[in-house]
Each structure stands twice: as C-alpha cells, then as structure tokens.
C-alpha cells in the first residue's frame, strides 16, 4: 500500500505525548477526517503513547499517511524496547492494569480505530500498530 509520507516522533516525556497528539491531529485534519474520527484517533494515540512511556520506558511513534484510492488513512506504529507484555489477551481486557490506571487504554484504543495489532516479546519490547481509514 502506497505510503505518501512518513515521520517519527520520540516518546520520552509527558511533553512528547502532547506532541504526538498534536501531530496526529494535524495530519488527521489535513486528510479531512471528521471531527469525531480525529478525536478518536488522537485519543487512541494518546493512550498508546502514554503506555509506551509508562509501561515501555519510552519509545517512538512512526506515522504514515496511506493512500489506497479511494480511501486515505493514517497508520501509527508505537514501538518501545520495554519489558513487553506477557499476556496480551489479558492486557487487552477492560480494567486490567499493572500500574494503577483505569486499565482501559489498550481495549479503548482498539475500539477507537479500524485496525489494531499488537506484537510484543517479553524482555524485548512492544509494537502496536493502529490504522484509521477515511
């Protein structure tokens, strides 16, 4: 699938999570996503960026603008080299948290996008790919 544009943002602090949200919002606006879809994707990005920061010891986001006529889309890949997720199915469950959060980030992010994939190797890191189509 043709990738029109690619960019990366490092995720190492709270401020970077804000940058991630701002960039995702800007690109979603450029692709003329509806306000609801913009908000959904930005919120999913916020969850996954914060997970990479808090659970994965920081990482980065790769953003790709996809062109698959007549659709266009945004793909976000969050990668970290943290401890990984031992049981992905469990982590995806609403309410499951190891960090005193609400435990709704992963499951919520999945419901906010069109495509969602987790690759995680304990001890190596986590890579979560989400795509939203317009």
């Amino acid at each position, binding site marked *: 699938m043709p990738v029109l544009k690619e960019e990366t943002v490092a995720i190492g602090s*709270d401020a970077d*999570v*804000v940058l991630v*949200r701002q960039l995702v*919002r800007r690109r979603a606006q450029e692709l003329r996503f509806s*306000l*609801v879809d*913009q*908000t*959904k994707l*930005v*919120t999913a990005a*916020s*969850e996954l960026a*914060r997970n990479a920061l808090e659970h994965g010891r920081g990482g980065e986001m790769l953003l790709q603008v996809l062109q698959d006529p007549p659709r266009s889309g945004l793909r976000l890949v969050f990668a970290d080299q943290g401890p990984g997720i031992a049981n992905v199915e469990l982590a995806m469950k*609403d309410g499951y948290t190891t960090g005193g*959060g*609400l435990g*709704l*980030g992963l*499951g*919520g992010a999945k*419901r*906010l996008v069109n495509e969602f994939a987790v690759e995680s190797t304990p001890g190596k890191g986590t890579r979560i790919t989400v795509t939203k189509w317009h």
Partner: protein
Amino acid sequence: MAVSLTHLPRILERHGDALLADWIREQLQAKSRTGAIKEGELREQCAEFLRLLREATAKGGTSDVSRPEFEPLRELLANVSRSRGVQGFSPSETAKFVFSFKRPLFMRLREELGRDAVALADETWAVTELLDELGLLTTETYQKTREAVIARQQEEMLELSTPVVKLWDGILALPMIGTLDSNRTQVVMETLLEKIVETGSEVAIIDITGVPTVDTLVAQHLMKTVAAARLMGAECIISGIRPAIAQTIVHLAIDLGNVITKANLADAFKTALDKRGMAQVPGR
C-alpha cells in the same frame, strides 16, 4: 592542529586601555537599549573580555574557539548573553557586544601592521573569523536563554489560565482550557479542592469545553477530583463534554455513571442552583 602565530595578544596587551575606551564609546554611541545596561557593568564585561581574549589567543591562537584555552572566554560570553536575554535585549543587540569590537580593533591592527600589507591582511582575516565565531556563540546562548524564559512564561500562563471562579454563593466553576496533562491537571485539581474548602462551596462545576482530548488519564484525574470533592462535602458537575469527546469516552468504556454531567456551563449552573435549593436564576 598547530596554533597559528598571531599578533593579537601583543596588540591587546599594548593597547588594552585605549581599546577598552574605544570599544565602550562604540557601544554607548549605538545606544539602542544599551542605556538599560549600566556603564559600570558594561566596562567590567568589556575589560574581562579583553583579558580573557588575550589569554586565550596567546595560548590557543585564533583559529578555533572550541579549544580548551577559550573555555573561560566562552563562559563569559554565555553569561553576558544570558543576562541580556533575560533583560529583554534583542538578539542583534546582544551580538553587537562582540561585533562592536571589530572597528576599534581593526584600527589598532592597521596602526601596528600597516607597513606589512600581507601580515595586515592575514591578521584582519583571522581576527574577523574569530570575532564572528564569538558573536555566533552569543547568539546561540541568547536563543537558549530566551527559550527558557518563554517556557517559564508558558508554565506561568498555564497556571493563570485555569482560574477557579466563584459563580454564586456556594458554587465554584473551573473552566479548563487546553491540554490536560499530569502536572497541570494535578495543579488545577488541587487548586479547585483548596478553593472548595476556602469558600465552603457545595457545588463545583468543572467545564471541559476547552479541552481537546479526554483520554483515560484525564478521565481518571477528573474522577479522582470528583471523589475528593465529595469527601469534603461538595458535589462536582462536569460540563462541556462535546459530542466527539462523548463518543470517545463511550469507546474507552469510561464509566462516568456517578458523576453529574451537563452539556454546557449554563445547564450545569442551573443544576447547581437547584442543588442549593434556589429556584430563581440570579438576575431575574
């Protein structure tokens, strides 16, 4: 790298006092905001610059300001530009500290080397490069300082931009604007709780019309605040949840079930008045 031979230290030594006087006159003439800086302070900075420049070039030549011999001089320049950055000087005014030294110095170079055209040309070239580099250093530090100043101002503004206002006797409102992240949310929520105690309010309205994203962290902060307020005997109403945000909250499966939510601040205010047992809307 070999240290190139330079006449500079000798000239600085011999004409030190005259150079200092010429240079200060040069800067006072330019007189933009230089008035804001005291002449005594300026004289001190210039004298120190001349001394350190002489020492640095005597040992380290003129070709490379990143050499360790230039360390004290670089530090002085950093201090000068930092203090000017804070005092609100423009970048060019700050860079002029170094650049205004060119003219007085070149006059002395001509005096000293005038008969030897080749030496004069070489030395002028080397000195120009040196001063340009030192000038650039001041600009870099200046920028960093300004960035730090701006960052600090932004932080201050963040705190200022979330005022807790008293809408009515016993009713507080907190209009939240912008990004709600850990630090800021913490500050804001604490302020609200303090104000509740201070004013003995029974209802607090948190209006999030100006918040672009509500994710699980923001939601958690909101719910904790609601819970803490409740412990202090105050009820919170969250208003201004826009349609797009309402949808994401549902997808995130965040349960706001036991929090009163209203579409806008006016509705929330009405509810608050009802809660306080006041049938009348103020002003009517």
